[in-house]
């Protein structure tokens, strides 16, 4: 293939053996940092690893126990912090499965490394200097917005840090600045398309070339639909805040699944039941080790995402293996308009409100292109006073409490006592009516 753009050709096309050498060297380094944290010192010593020299090959990584989201929660806030707080220049955070969030620390070097991975990802799609980049992901504690922002600046694109929401303004901005590249969730991009023309701004008035679509799983059909409707190239992106955020894996110009940047991450796919490492091509749970983040090393983190790694190379010439689309989850996490939501977060809030009974239901469906979350609760008869104002205040309280916890304001429905299906395990508590295309 000709015209394949690279940010760091040497690393991106390095021989596998050279790449693995680099991985081993960096793995030893990160084990050194991990041993500085109380959490990993204990974990690693149980596995017989007390110094970086106890890791002699990449195979030795399999001796390291998995790290789970629960570990992060139990060691909140600083149990996995490997550096002095004075060296930490940034904190990001994501929702925990309960009230305790997951916190991630970055040193200046960590931010620099992460930014470089994003610069590499962006360049790989053919975007670069001269492009106008409209970053439509939320900024703030969520890693999606700031991560791409820094990478885009490093590449030299003109960055519009508009953030999420306000579709009218998004479309106007696309026209005003002749935006060429978008960073957005697939569902929001389809929603934006449905609103084109409302203010007399049509596709022909826009200069869109490409979209980086991430933060929520989507099918190849959805990508095709986006590309056909908007006449743009859509690139899939993968990341999670525990492993920095976006830029763990990104599609190149071939758009045939995402290269995992293997000089920065070790990707394994395991059988989620047995923990056994599977061969390339076999579907299982993705497990990631972060090789280049000192502030908070992350060893064999169980992402709960189901995927597989392509055994064969890519036409672009990169040697870094490609990760499939995310095919599912091993837990009950819901992704609603790009935001991760655990049913347990919702349950925790509802159970604290005495005016509602213990039965509830979480319902997710589509309204147009966007996801819609409805939380149904039952009125608790003994605390019913017969006043609309009290009921509406209750409805608002539930909505606000949930928004504070999961960042999405759901529709709250009040139901009669005993009217919702009685819980027989978690299955009935969550109804996902979104079409699986």
């Amino acid at each position, binding site marked *: 293939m000709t015209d394949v753009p690279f940010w760091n050709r040497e690393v991106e096309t390095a021989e596998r053996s050279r790449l693995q050498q680099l991985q081993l060297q960096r793995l030893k380094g990160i084990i050194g940092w991990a041993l500085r944290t109380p959490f990993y010192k204990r974990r690693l010593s149980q596995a017989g690893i007390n110094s970086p020299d106890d890791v002699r090959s990449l195979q030795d990584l399999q001796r390291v126990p998995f790290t789970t989201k629960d570990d992060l929660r139990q060691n909140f806030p600083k149990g996995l912090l490997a550096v002095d707080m004075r060296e930490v220049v940034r904190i990001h955070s994501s929702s925990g499965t309960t009230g305790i969030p997951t916190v991630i620390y970055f040193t200046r070097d960590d931010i620099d490394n992460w930014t470089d991975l994003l610069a590499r990802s962006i360049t790989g799609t053919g975007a670069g200097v001269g492009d106008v980049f409209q970053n439509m992901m939320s900024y703030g504690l969520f890693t999606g917005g700031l991560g791409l922002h820094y990478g885009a600046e490093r590449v030299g694109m003109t960055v519009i840090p508009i953030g999420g929401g306000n579709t009218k303004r998004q479309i106007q901005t696309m026209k005003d600045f002749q935006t060429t590249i978008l960073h957005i969730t697939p569902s929001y991009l389809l929603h934006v398309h449905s609103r084109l023309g409302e203010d007399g701004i049509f596709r022909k008035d826009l200069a869109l070339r490409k979209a980086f679509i991430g933060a929520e799983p989507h099918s190849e059909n959805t990508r095709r639909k986006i590309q056909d409707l908007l006449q743009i190239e859509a690139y899939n992106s993968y990341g999670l805040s525990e492993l920095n955020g976006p830029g763990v894996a990104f599609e190149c110009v071939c758009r045939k699944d995402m290269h995992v940047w293997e000089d920065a991450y070790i990707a394994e796919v395991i059988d989620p039941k047995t923990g056994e490492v599977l061969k390339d091509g076999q579907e299982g749970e993705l497990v990631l080790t972060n090789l280049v983040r000192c502030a908070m090393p992350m060893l064999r983190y169980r992402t709960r995402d189901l995927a597989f790694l392509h055994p064969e190379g890519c036409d672009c010439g990169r040697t870094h293996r490609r990760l499939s689309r995310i095919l599912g989850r091993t837990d009950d996490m819901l992704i609603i308009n790009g935001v991760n939501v655990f049913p347990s977060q919702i349950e925790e809030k509802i159970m604290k409100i005495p005016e509602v009974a213990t039965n509830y239901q979480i319902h997710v469906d589509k309204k147009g292109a966007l996801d819609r979350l409805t939380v149904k609760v039952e009125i608790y008869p003994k605390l019913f006073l*017969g*006043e*609309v104002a009290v*009921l*509406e205040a209750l409805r608002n309280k539930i909505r606000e409490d949930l928004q504070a916890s999961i960042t999405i304001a759901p529709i709250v429905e009040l*139901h009669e*006592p005993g009217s919702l299906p009685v819980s027989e395990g978690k299955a009935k508590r969550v109804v996902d009516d979104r079409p699986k295309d």
Partner: protein
Amino acid sequence: MGVSPMSSRSRAGCPCYRIMGKMPMLRGVMAKQLTIFVENRPGRLKSISENLCKSHIDIRAFTIQDRGDYGLLRLIVDKPNDAYLALADVGCACALKDILAVSVPDQPGNFHRLASALAENSINVLDAYGFVLQPHKTGVCCMEIDRPQMAKAEEVVKAAGFTVLEDEELYGL
């Protein structure tokens, strides 16, 4: 489902009695309205009417306050406590509330007189509904008033020459 009216169990189980305990006793006993939480979907009203029917409850008046996904059904019945227990026993969210029931002669201008008297005394009406009992003779206006203003509202209405209907007077209409 046997309902024994006014048993000690019924008093303890009914939220309105707890609330009433904190209230200064007014002269006589305030009229009661039964308020029922009803989901807005087919068949829900029927299940309530069925239970009231089984308990031989006579409905004097009713109205529904619609809130989209649910509504509040407000009833004036001949035996409010029995009706409350009949519904509470089957798990309904319902409550008995004090209302100010005023007898309003059914002639032009009388409702205006009532509303003016309340307005002049800064009484806020939370919710109200009315019905004609005997055309051109008697109408009834039922009002929910903020608890702290209830006693004053009763005085104001009486001072304006209206008759306040106490519990049995209203149910026996």
